[in-house]
């Protein structure tokens, strides 16, 4: 029965045979669904955005297929340059914040007995498996005018009128640092953990004080982890629009908010596409800078 079918479909049997013998063909077959899927959902959409960024906006928010570079020249307008500068500043401050809070903790975890380390790392990750809007909401409850922080400070008598923290750039920073903290701690821990005790002991034997040993040995050796962590924090922080939306009020506009507004509120898709291209190019520049320095390691994946 089987041989009969095979005989009546000589084309099919030869294809199967070919597939069995040709390893290259097997590889291509296995990878083809991914390639085809990503061409349709990643490559084509991105090419489309590039094309739209050179088109003209119609009067009713439609796209007129007429070539122009006006969307890009609009980006150098001082208003948009300020938004861009502010986004870069926020991303940089967020990165510094995560280093400031994350470094001592990563250093501590690298120094506790090794069986405790896994538990501590697990404890850092647990809250971040919960939804990130929930985490922002928790901070809104704490920071708002009649929130816990203000009640507590007033109860202590430190302040008499509530502080306005929520809906300010400070609130955005607090939220962003909290969101991205694990992305800094994990790579930092990885590089701190690799430092040999012998190196520090040698420094101590040679008379180096702990602080000097830290500055001359530990800190330089942990720089790869810090670079990896900075990239992992800086890049998503640059395009973030949810935290500014919920915690920054109307005044805080980052590049991510600008793009969102152009697509959904202002309905200026060509200009929104140009802004997206700018964000994408900045992302690629920072990523390439990192890859050239460190190579594509597993660190980037956490």
């Amino acid at each position: 029965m089987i041989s009969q079918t095979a005989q009546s479909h000589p084309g099919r049997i030869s294809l199967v045979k070919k597939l069995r013998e040709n390893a290259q063909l097997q590889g291509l077959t296995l990878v083809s669904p991914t390639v085809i899927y990503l061409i349709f959902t990643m490559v084509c959409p991105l090419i489309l955005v590039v094309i739209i960024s050179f088109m003209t906006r119609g009067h009713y928010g439609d796209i007129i297929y007429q070539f122009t570079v006006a969307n890009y020249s609009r980006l150098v307008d001082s208003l948009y340059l300020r938004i861009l500068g502010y986004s870069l500043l926020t991303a940089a401050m967020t990165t510094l914040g995560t280093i400031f809070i994350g470094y001592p903790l990563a250093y501590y975890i690298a120094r506790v007995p090794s069986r405790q380390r896994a538990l501590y790392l697990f404890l850092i990750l647990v809250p971040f498996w919960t939804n990130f809007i929930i985490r922002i909401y928790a901070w809104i409850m704490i920071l708002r005018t009649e929130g816990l922080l203000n009640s507590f400070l007033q109860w202590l008598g430190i302040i008499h009128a509530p502080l306005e923290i929520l809906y300010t750039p400070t609130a955005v920073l607090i939220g962003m640092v909290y969101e991205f903290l694990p992305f800094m701690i994990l790579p930092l821990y990885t590089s701190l953990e690799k430092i040999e005790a012998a190196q520090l002991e040698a420094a101590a034997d040679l008379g180096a004080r702990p602080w000097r040993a830290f500055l001359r040995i530990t800190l330089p050796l942990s720089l790869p982890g810090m670079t990896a962590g900075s990239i992992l924090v800086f890049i998503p922080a640059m395009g973030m629009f949810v935290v500014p939306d919920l915690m920054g009020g109307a005044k805080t506009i980052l590049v991510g908010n600008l793009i969102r507004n152009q697509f959904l509120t202002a309905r200026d898709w060509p200009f929104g596409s140009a802004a997206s291209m700018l964000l994408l190019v900045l992302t690629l520049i920072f990523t390439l800078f990192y890859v050239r320095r460190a190579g594509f390691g597993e660190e980037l994946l956490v």
Partner: protein
Amino acid sequence: MSEKKPALWLRIFAILTFLYIYFPILILVIFSFNTQKLNIRWEGFTFHWYGVLFKDSNVILATRNTLLIATISTIVATIIGTMAALALQRYRFPGYSITESALYVPVIIPEVVMGISLLAFFALIGLKLGLGTITLSHIAFNIPFVALVVRARLHGFDKSIEEAAMDLGANELTTFWRVTLPTIMPGVLSGAMLAFTLSLDDYVITYFTSGPGSTTLPLRIFSMVRFAVTPEVNALSTLWVLTVFILLFIGQVAQRRQPAS
């Protein structure tokens, strides 16, 4: 690094940092039992908001949508992504290195850019925004993550077991089902778990690719937070946190019970 006892100030700093990480979540949980609707000050204990939550048809619909999207996108992305991981780990083919580096693009591309480009693309081909477009988009960002995780796990895989199976007369299909798949299963499962979590958690891409009636839980929570801060949001968040804790706990126990091979 040395296992000398860390200095006292470092220990205090570590404790404070852990407090900083867990305090907001603790507050969230406590205030889900608050009787005061404005949820400003603690008034008294109640389960009232959980009752409100279970009767909230919007939340129920959003939960159903979220689970549906996460399940379908995880299954599809895990199958396709695992195939790609096998191809990249074991075969050399034309276009190998470009495929390999292209897999990183969805990982590094800003979410908002991916969101608007999918929105523009769906609009161009005339696909109606809704559960379908969200699922298609989730599969897209999940495939690379699954492929990368599974591939990392395939790294130390010993091909000689497969050759032994074939020598003993098993054909390719039997070898795959009985030897290869069970061996790479832990990697496939962790890829699937990551995909499921990413899908459950996603706000940005869902936001751009959703249409009327296709609200997911993160979108629902966002609009609840935006318009009114009531203990109902806390109750919903508490249940979410609880579910995650239970799942992580089960995962840990399962990992411990596995023989250390």
